[in-house]
């Protein structure tokens, strides 16, 4: 007779760098069911955004996720610009693309390293992170800080780049390209890496579309979907690039998408630097914006990111809604754990590049009965704010 045992994974677990909990039902070593609990690091950012003005919110949205911070600020400022009908100068658009792609390279190298570490391959982790430091240096050179820099601002960007910086950047990019090609060869050929990643967490193309997977997770399942190509923003409509896809649909394919995207990003930056138009880098924007609503979609390193801003003619937004990629991917990937062993959990989980700091949502729980409820904004107002 076999029976299933509940196994809790997290919230504090060495394989997760962030507190999340997975409840696996296991039969021996094999996972038969999985339940995801998110929300440990819910910080109430959407609510906080309503109490800060538009400029302060750039810094707040940047801190939704420290890794893809440029994607968040870009998406937020684009939503605000869409709302207020602000035209951004051409040069600013190209600069935005450059920093956005630098951010993508750093994020992809980071997760490739973390994946190697989780599989117990610490050497590759150290090498990848050593090479990533070169990118951090140019990010610091261009934006003024290693990680969070609030480079994008409403109406343009905060800093310009000059020719010396350009030269320096091109030189570093050559080196990074060489390193990435080396890592690509290693990850493609290493038998142990393939053993752990190939045929893990297979997400069929149809399932990926049905469960609304986004970003490298979808493209690893051969879904042709990239916001940069299909709904171009900033200067992406003028820059040629390929949408990377892999047919294997497994963890390995998702990681290889990231390697190839890194190389593609390097080409995008080279093209943008070469064709960088002259002119202003920002336009002045008044603090009080007209009433309206704005929406923006951005291809963050982890997938499609949406910001939606409402304003009632104030210095603050009336409402900010954020929809992040991991929220879509975690639900798409959860069923693929079934049938694999416990030891494979990190290999599958890391392949979607989970980032929970942006994902955690709120559910209302009636404390006396433990019942979980869904409430509309009106009901919450009536219950809590009418007092």
């Amino acid at each position, binding site marked *: 007779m076999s029976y299933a045992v509940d196994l809790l994974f997290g919230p504090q677990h060495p394989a997760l*760098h962030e507190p999340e909990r997975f409840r696996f039902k296991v039969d021996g070593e094999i996972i038969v069911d999985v339940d995801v609990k998110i929300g*440990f690091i819910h910080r109430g950012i959407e609510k*906080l955004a309503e109490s800060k003005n538009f400029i302060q919110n750039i810094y707040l949205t940047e801190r939704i996720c420290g890794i893809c911070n440029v994607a968040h600020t870009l998406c937020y400022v684009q939503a605000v610009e869409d709302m207020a009908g602000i035209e951004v100068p051409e040069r600013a658009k190209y600069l935005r693309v450059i920093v956005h792609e630098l951010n993508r390279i750093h994020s992809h190298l980071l997760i490739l390293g973390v994946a190697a570490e989780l599989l117990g391959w610490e050497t590759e982790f150290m090498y990848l*992170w*050593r090479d990533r430091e070169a990118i951090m240096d140019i990010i610091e050179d261009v934006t003024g800080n290693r990680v969070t820099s609030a480079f994008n601002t409403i109406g343009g960007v905060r800093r310009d780049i000059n020719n010396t910086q350009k030269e320096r950047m091109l030189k570093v990019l050559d080196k990074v390209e060489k390193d990435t090609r080396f890592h690509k060869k290693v990850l493609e050929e290493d038998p142990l890496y393939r053993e752990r990643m190939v045929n893990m967490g297979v997400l069929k193309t149809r399932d990926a579309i049905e469960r609304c997977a986004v970003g490298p997770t979808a493209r690893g399942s051969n879904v042709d979907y990239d916001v940069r190509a299909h709904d171009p923003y900033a200067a992406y409509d003028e820059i040629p690039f390929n949408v990377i896809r892999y047919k294997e649909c497994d963890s390995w394919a998702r990681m290889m998408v990231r390697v190839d995207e890194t190389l593609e990003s390097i080409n995008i930056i080279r093209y943008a630097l070469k064709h960088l138009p002259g002119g202003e880098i920002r336009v002045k924007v008044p603090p009080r914006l007209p009433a309206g609503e704005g929406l923006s979609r951005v291809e963050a390193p982890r997938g499609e990111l949406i910001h939606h801003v409402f304003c009632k003619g104030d210095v603050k937004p009336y409402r900010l809604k954020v929809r992040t990629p991991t929220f879509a991917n975690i639900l798409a990937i959860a069923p693929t754990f079934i049938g694999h062993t416990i030891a494979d959990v990190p290999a599958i989980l890391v392949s979607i590049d989970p980032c929970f700091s942006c994902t955690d949502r709120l559910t209302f729980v009636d404390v006396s009965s433990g019942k979980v409820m869904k409430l509309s904004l009106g009901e919450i107002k009536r219950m809590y704010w009418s007092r």
Partner: protein
Amino acid sequence: MSIYRLALWSRMKSPWIYHINTGSCNACDIEILAALTPRFDVERFGIKLVGSPRHADVLLVTGPVTEQMAERVKRIYEQVPQPKFVIAVGTCACSGGVFRGGYTIKGGVDTVIPVDVYVPGCPPRPEAIIKGVVLLLQKLKGEAK
């Protein structure tokens, strides 16, 4: 040399750290990882990241404490064997940072557990984190004398 001083001496030579994320935005976490990697390489001081609080001497805490994590941080703190030390990494962990005032935020780490060293910065550079650890080691040295 008493046993206590012997333990303190060995801890100074190789403090093992355990990292808790109590609601951070990940930037502080990646800077901690960056501090471990070849460019900064804190392992040359014998500092090692361990996978269980029961093996740790020092807790590195990042991020503002959220309602859900508060209980868990306390529990993890209690699991660390005595004597234990806490370093709050990042402005969030020091005071709550940009998230101060949010409805799920309790504030800095020191609202929940005692903190020995504060490393401000958003995120602090890996050099700053290393400085924080070295400050803690100096503090220990003072105790050892």
